[in-house]
Every structure is written in C-alpha cells, then in structure tokens.
C-alpha cells in the first residue's frame, strides 16, 4: 500500500556505473595497464586486456610478474574502495554525479602486498576478483586472485593490507 515502487533499472545502473567510473577512470596507471572493471550487481571483475608491452619474458612469452602484481593490487584497491562507498551509494547519501577526478572517493593506500605466482601468465586477457577478508576502522585485509582461461586455475593470488582513508571523500581542498 505505502510501499515505494522499485527504482527504474536505468536509475540504479546509472548510479552504480557512475560511481564505479569515478573510482576507476581518473587513475592514469589503470589506463597504462589497459585495465577495465566490469560490474554485476555489487560484484566487480577486473579485466586486463592483453597488449604486447605487458610481456616480461619474451621467450615463453609470459606476462611480467610485476604487471601481474600490479593487476592484483589495483583490483584489491578498487574492490575495497567500492565496498566502502556501496552503502552510502545505495542509501543515496552519495551522489555519483558529484564525483569527479578532483572529487573522487578517497582510495585506500597499500601497506603491503604478498604475491604468490602459481603459473606463467599467458599472452591473453586476464581477469581478477578480490574479496575483503577483514575491514576495520584503520586497515583492511584483502585477498585477490587472477585467472585466464579457467576460473578454477588462477595464475596468481595475493593478500594485501590497506590503510582506510580517514574521511569518506576527499574534497578539492
């Protein structure tokens, strides 16, 4: 009777995709790697599009181990940043149209990252998903893994610790 009608699907998508773009698009290094982030509901999948400059061992050839580490780290940071804004976003306390390059959600900073290389990264697209294992007021612990052809056979995984930003958003100051 008094129940509110559900939001139109386009409104929901625009809000969520707008917030995700604000998190991802402003970071030059994400463009340098050729990374994209896809969203299904609140689940994010990072995509590393293959490019020749990502190669670290031309003889195999295999992706550079540093690129793999960077791909995992970026995925973990975006996942954590996304988790931090999700509630505010859905409660409409955060307006994605107010987010821009200079006024973006403040991203967590990496304290440390421990990468486990399981097999060589092949010269093709790679995918990654992260899971926030522990999220406190001061720091968070995140697990992240990446795969290529087969979701059940990751080629690398990592655990990292990240400082939580002190305020929700960073203003232009």
């Amino acid at each position, binding site marked *: 009777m008094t129940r509110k009608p559900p939001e139109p699907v386009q409104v929901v998508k625009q809000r969520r995709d707008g917030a995700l773009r604000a998190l991802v698009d402003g970071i030059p*290094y994400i463009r340098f790697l050729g990374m994209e982030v896809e969203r299904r509901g609140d689940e994010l999948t990072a995509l590393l599009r293959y490019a020749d400059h990502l190669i670290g061992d031309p003889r195999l050839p295999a992706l*550079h181990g*540093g690129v793999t580490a960077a791909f995992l780290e970026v995925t973990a940071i975006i996942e954590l940043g996304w988790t931090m804004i999700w509630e505010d976003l859905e409660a409409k306390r955060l307006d994605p149209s107010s987010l821009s390059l200079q006024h973006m959600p403040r991203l967590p900073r990496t304290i440390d990252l421990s990468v486990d*290389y399981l097999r060589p990264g092949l010269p093709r697209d790679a995918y990654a998903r992260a899971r926030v294992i522990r999220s406190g007021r001061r720091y968070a612990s995140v697990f992240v893994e990446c795969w290529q052809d087969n979701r059940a056979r990751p080629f690398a995984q990592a655990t990292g610790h990240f400082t939580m930003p002190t305020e929700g958003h960073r203003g232009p100051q």
Partner: protein
Amino acid sequence: MAETEPQIAAARRMFAAIPQVAALGIVIDEMAPGKARMTMPYDARLVGDPVTGVIHGGAVSTLLDTCSGAAVACHPQAAGPTATIDLRINYIRPADPGQAITARAECYHVTRSFAFIRATAHDDDTSLPVAEAVGTFTFEAGPRVAT
C-alpha cells in the same frame, strides 16, 4: 670474477629486451654478481593518485620484480631466465612526485633451483626507502652448477 662477465652481459641484454621494462622506461644502471640496480623515471602515465601525482605502487612493484630477477640472473650459481615464485612488498612511504625511483636488489642465497632476494626502492631522499621487497625466484641452472 672475469668468468661471470659473459653471464652478466647476457643477463643485461635479456633484461633490456623485456617489453614491459621498455614501456616503463626502466634503465639498467648496474649489474654485478648477484646484484642489480635500475632506475624508473617519473612518468605521468604511471600516476596512481591524480590529485597528488604519486606513482602507483604497481609500477614500483614491477621495478622491484625486474631488478630482483636481474640480480638472480647475475648470480654466479644461477642463470636466466628467471621466474618469480613469491614476492612480498612493503610500501613504506609515497614516492615524491617528479622524482625517479631507483631499485637495488641483492640475490643473497641460491639453492640448486631457488634463489632468495631482497630489494629496496628509493627516490631522491635516500634516508628511507619508498618500498622494500623480499622474494623467491626459480631459475634455469647455469653451467657452473654442474659438478
């Protein structure tokens, strides 16, 4: 010492030919038995925080990983190609925007097929590293391993 020179020259050629090393503009400063030093110039494409201009940790990881692999490839009991098994990185402080980052890696022990490394990365302020790393690598055994 002299007999390691061809190995180091080969390792230097191998690392200089890595596409991602070229993409990052990494310069090999020095390679010596079990040691390497490399510099990555400041580049706006590598920024992780557009507000401060600080280089993304991922680019620093790649510099540390590359420099560590080179230190392994230069170890008298190892030889290239190398592969990283495990790399742990501590991000101690943000690098100063505008400054190049220099990595120094040391391969301090090798077994028959594994190598252990430690590495640091500095900007112009050499009193405190930007980042440090410890790692484990595999390598293809060099000629001097045979007994």
